[in-house]
Each structure stands twice: as structure tokens, then as C-alpha cells.
């Protein structure tokens, strides 16, 4: 069975580490981290992950802007994107969904169940 490849973009290096450690508890996950939207765009086009975990508030290029760019590129347009954010209001949730996000995971997250939460956001075809 093939692995589930997750690209994680966050400007906080510590959070990149924690997410990588949390997801690696599920042996099927393969995780790569990027510290900026620009790096994330390049990695997404080159690596073609199964899912992108995307921080919302980042300097230079924020999450929603990066999502727009992902959608513009045919190579990355179909990759499901899950936002990670400290803003968890219902209204924001609706807002992110309307931008085309496959899900929203709030920060702080529970590291022991993060992998399950990410799987929940995946298309049924990837969930196996």
C-alpha cells in the first residue's frame, strides 16, 4: 500500500517539528515541511502530495493566498488543502470552506490524534 504524503507549511519551525512527529505516529504518513508559502508552492508542484496542511497566518504569503496560487496551477489545483489555524470561530470555518479548504484543524491540536484528524479530512479514496 502506498503512503499518504502530507506537505505541511508553517512559518514556525517548532510547529513543523511537532506536526511531523505527531503524524509520524501513523506509519502510513510521509511528511515534508516548508517554512514559507513560496517554498510550499514549489514543493507542492514538484512532490505532488496527497494533502497539504497549511498555516493561515504567515508573513509574506498567508495561507489563503497560497491556496489561491495552488488552485491556479493545474499541477496542484486538485490537492486537498487543510488549514491549521488559531482562529476557530464558526464564521471563519465557513469562510475557509468557501475558499475551498477540505477541512480546518484548530491550533493547538492534540498531537496524539492529529493523524486521525488529517485522515478525516481526506477524500474517501485516500482514506484506506
Amino acid at each position, binding site marked *: 500500500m502506498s503512503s499518504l504524503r502530507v506537505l505541511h507549511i508553517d512559518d*514556525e519551525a*517548532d*510547529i513543523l517539528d*511537532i*506536526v511531523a*512527529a*505527531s503524524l509520524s*505516529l501513523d506509519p502510513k504518513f510521509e511528511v515534508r515541511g516548508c517554512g514559507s508559502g513560496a517554498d510550499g508552492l514549489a514543493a507542492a508542484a514538484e512532490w505532488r502530495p496527497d494533502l497539504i496542511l497549511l498555516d493561515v*497566518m504567515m508573513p509574506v504569503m498567508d495561507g489563503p493566498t497560497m491556496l489561491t496560487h495552488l488552485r491556479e496551477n493545474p499541477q496542484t489545483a486538485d490537492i486537498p488543502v487543510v488549514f491549521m489555524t*488559531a*482562529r*476557530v*470561530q*464558526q*464564521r471563519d470555518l465557513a*469562510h475557509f470552506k*468557501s*475558499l475551498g479548504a477540505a477541512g480546518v484543524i484548530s*491550533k*493547538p*491540536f*492534540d*498531537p*496524539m490524534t492529529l493523524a486521525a484528524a488529517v485522515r478525516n479530512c481526506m477524500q474517501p479514496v485516500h482514506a484506506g
Partner: protein
Amino acid sequence: MLRAIFAAWNSDRSAMGEISDGAAVVEGNAGSRDVPDDPPRKAVSLPTEIVQKAILNSADFAIIATDAKGVIQIFNAGAERSLGYTAGVVINKMVPSEFHDPQEMIARADQLSAEFGTTVAPGFGALTFKAARGIEDQYELEYVRNDGSRFPADITITALRDERHEIIGYLEIGVDKSAKVAMIAADKEKHRLKDEFVATVSHELRTPLTSIVGALGLLTGNAAGKLPEPAMHLLTIAYTNGQRLVRLLNDILDIEKMESGKAVFDFNRVEVRSLVERTIEENHALAEGCGVRLRLDAALVAFDVRADSDRLVQAITNLLSNAIKFSPPGEEVVVAVETRNDAVRISVRDHGHGVPEAFKPHIFEKFAQADATDARQKGGTGLGLSIVKQIVDRLDGTVGFGDAPGGGAIFNIDLPNWADAVRRQSHLVGMAHLRILLCEDDPEAAIVLVDRLGREGFPTDVALTANEAVARAATTTYAAVLVDLQRPDGNGISLIKQLREQPQIYNAMLVVLSAELDPAPDEERVAAILNIVDWLDAPLDIARLMRVLDRQIVRNGTTRPRILHVESDPELLRAVAAALGAKVEVMSVDSIDKARRALAANRFDVAVLDVALAAGSGIDLLHELRDSEGDAIPLIVFSPGDTNPAFATQLRSALIKSRTSIDNLISILQKRLLGSSQPSHHEDAA
């Protein structure tokens, strides 16, 4: 007697100005003789009448008295100073309503009409409506000075009655509150800065907390290998406290949002039983961890309330987690749902120690904990119950508590049942209830508008589909409905018709937008604006037209509104004119050219337009139905037969000819809904 005072006042005005300089002490009938120990005072005896005049003249606020018809009889120096008119100009000539903003008078008339279920015309009658019925009446209105400038004032109106209790006139006292308003604005700014600070701090705190709690969670979850017991014990302490800090941050943010009125509540019809079941399910793990059983003791009937389901779940969760934490292991927490005096009651009963007597008055206060050490050990934030109170207040309900029979505490939330809540809401129609429904299929366009409308103080709900729009309009009262005509799921015209069938939004202003991305990237999205009162199909239902016009007339508040009726069928023109009768002035025209001439020469309150005029399409006229300020005249559209999508396209292209900006839309909404073109002080927290 009033007439006598009026006469004295009017004949003797010039003499009164000087009195205010003199120090006048009045010695009444029961003077110092009754108090023999008082040292003798130097007293100047003045006739009561002169003192009354001095009071009138010296008072630093406007005192305006009228006769029963509203014609001004007394206009004091305070009124002269603040309003910029001299008494000579207004006495026997003007009516106080002329000093007020006409739009505000309309809004007031609307509000009274809705409150009393009758038609109140704007003007002096609207000012004195309550006073004439012996109801205390104090409110805020803007005064318009002689030079056109304005100031906000607190106004009190009292009916003046003779000895037979007949009304012989009215007294209006207006106190300038510009200083107060400026203070409120400064206060608001202070609050805004505080809110911003709290939001920033909580975000900044959350970022490192995410790493800390994440790392500790991995360690205590043995993700980095098995740790020795003493290390695990210490890490667990760090981890649970980190989690508590997160909860505390969340609660502080929640409280701050609700107190500042920024929390958006998404009201829907909610079935209570299944919602409570869901909440119990979500709290099972917590209960199990404490060795407490959760049981639902609910009636089998479904109860519906009007609520934001997520917020209601949050409130019940807070009650549940308190009950769980304060229950001894092995005990049971019972959640019940029942009706009580037409309200729906959700109660949570525990078997703990109950609420200590001394703590009862403070239980809903922030950071209130009966036994601080005890509560902290249980991981509470001290904000749970105060959040419950905030939420339930916003849901129009009440929260209470008591001692449970047999020990323990029982907390309950009472919410108005669905039907009552809807009824209560519909009473608010016409008042400063400023929620807007945006029917826009393009989420991006919707987000731009919602953000902007929100910043202007209009909470806005979005309906992406026609079905959603109708469902929302059926359950929520909106002050205005904005409809984008271009829709992938059917045509916008049928949506307008469906929406106008909903009694909840009878009084809402319905604005048609045609949102188009402007080719120039830096320009804002544009929208042509039509204010559609109703859309009627052939054969014309004259009764419905009358109802719609009546509502529009009440809204507009003009005493004898002028209606432009553009229709090529002479019989229909006659029938409508006859049915409308004398209370309105109808100008009937049977061609576009005549309509244009009529529009150029007159001001109309409402237009009725047959869009399929024989001599040229009535659509061409749509964007010309504007008043001298360029605002869309409220329009009732009459179209023969089925409206097809091609027609909608035609209509849209007609609208695009008259593009306007978002700013223009906002200013129209402000003018129509708030009765002013300035940011409103009516903004409610909804």
C-alpha cells in the same frame, strides 16, 4: 391657563432676557415662619410667573411648547441658541417636527407603527404619538439647525393638559448630547483598541502554546519512547496545565467577543433533544474519566428553539463539565429537556455539594469560583458559567440554578420555543434591527461584501443558493435582502418573487445587485442597484398590489405619497388609480416617453412599472427610475406571463448600464435602514 402663559410670554419676550442675570430667591407660602430656628434670610420675593419665565429663558436646553395641533407657542432662548432660529420666526408658524431629520421621522413612524400595530404617519403625530397616550416618551433624535447642520439630542415629549384632562398642547425638551456622543465615540475607540489587543495577544500566546502543548502531548503519549514514572508524573502536570492555559485563552477570547458584540450568532431552527444527545455524547470521555455517568431524561416530544446550535452546545457543555467535575465518582449527572410555561427548559443536575449560599450571588461573574483551590484542581477557568450566561442572553433565554432535591445542584437554561421566538423577532421588523441577507452564488464576491457590510455595522448572512435564501428568509427577520440577479441555479427574478412571499421579510428592503468583476483590477466590484418592493405577474392581483403599496406608504411615511404608474393597458391604469383612491396621488402614463417626462418634473415615492410596455421595452426605463439624488425609487415590477432566463439576462444588462460602487450601496443602506448617511449609533449587538 396655558394660553395665558403663551400670551404673557409672547407679549413680554423682550423683558425676560434680563431676568436671568438677577439672583432670584423664591419665598413660597410655607416660608421661614414654619422653621423658627432658621436665621432670617435676605429674601427677594418674585412673582411665580416671572420665575417661570426666568427658568424658561435661562435653561441651557431647548424648551418648545406647542398648541394641540403642534404649532409652536413657546420657543425658549436655549432653543434659539441650539437651533439657530429666533422665536419670532417660529412662534405661530412652525411645528417641532420641522427641526428633525425627515428620515429619522420616518424611521420613528415605522417603529411606532410596528410597536402599536397601526399606521403612524411621520411628522408631528409621530413625535407626540406616545405622549398623547400618556406613555412616557424619551428618545434620541437629531436636530437640524437653521443652517442645515445637525446635532444629536435626548428628547422628552409631554402632553400639556387642562383641568378637564384635555390635551391643550405639547412640551418638547431637547438636550444637546454632542459631548456625550463624542465621549461614547472615544470610548468605542478605546474598546476597539482593547479588543484588538486581546485578539493579538491571544494569537501570539497561542503560537508558542501550540508547540509546548504539542511537545508535552507527544512525550506523555510515549511517542518518544517510554519514560520513567517520576518524569511522566512531572510531564503530565506540565501537559494538563498547558491544556488549561489553552482553555483559558479560548474562554477569554469567547467572553471578549461576546461582550464586545462581535460574536456572530447564526440563528437557526434547532431541535433540542438531538442537540442535547449530541452534547452528552461529546462529553462521555470526560465523564468516564471522572467515573460519572451521564443520563438523558428527556421527554420524547421534539422541541424546537431558535438558536445558534454551536453556541447552545457550548453552553450545555459548560454546564455538563461543571456537573461532572463536581460530582463524586460513581454518581450520575442527569440532563432533562422539558417545556415549562411555553419555554423549552434544558436542565443539568448533579449530585455534588451544591452551590454554597455565599457564592450564589456571584456565580455568573467572571473568574468566580466557589472554592478557588478546589476548582483549579479540577482544571476550571472560572469563566464557564459566565460564558453560559452570555450565550443564553444572546439566545433570548434565561439561565438559573437551584438546590436539587436530595442534594446537588441543578442548572437550567430556558429558551423561548420556536414559534414564540419567531413572533418576538417579527416585532422587531422596522426597528433598528439591521441584519442583512445576501443572496450571492459567488462565495468570493459574497466574502468581499459581507466583510464590508459587517464593518459598517450590518451583520450579514449569506445564502449561496436560492433554496438557502428562501429558507433563511423564512426563519430570520432581515432589514434588507440583497439579490444578485446572475445565478447558476435558476433566475434571480423567480428568487425575488419567492422571497417576497415570505412574511418575515415583508418590510425588508430588497435590493437587486448585478455583481460583475470590473476589468480594472484595482477597482472595487460594482453593483447596479434596484430597490424592488415586489414583483407581480399577470394577471395583476390588485389586492396584493394594494397591500404592497400600503406597506410601502407606511414605510415612506409621506402623508400623500406620489406614485408613478407606467402601464400600456389603459384599463389597468384606471383600475389601479380607482383602487388606490384618494390617499395617494397616482400619475398614470402609458409610454416610456411620458414616464421620462413625468420623472423629470416630479418626485415619486413609488413606481409601478410594466416591464413589457407595448411601445418599447419597459426594461429601458429601469435604470432611469431614480430620484434627484440618484437613489433608486422603490419599484413594483409588473411583468406579463412567465419570466424566463433570457428576460433576466436582458434585465441584468439594463442594470449594468448604471453601475455603482460598494460605497454607494452602503450609503443607500445607511440612508434607508438607519435614516442617516452617517455611521449609526443604532447598531445593535446582533
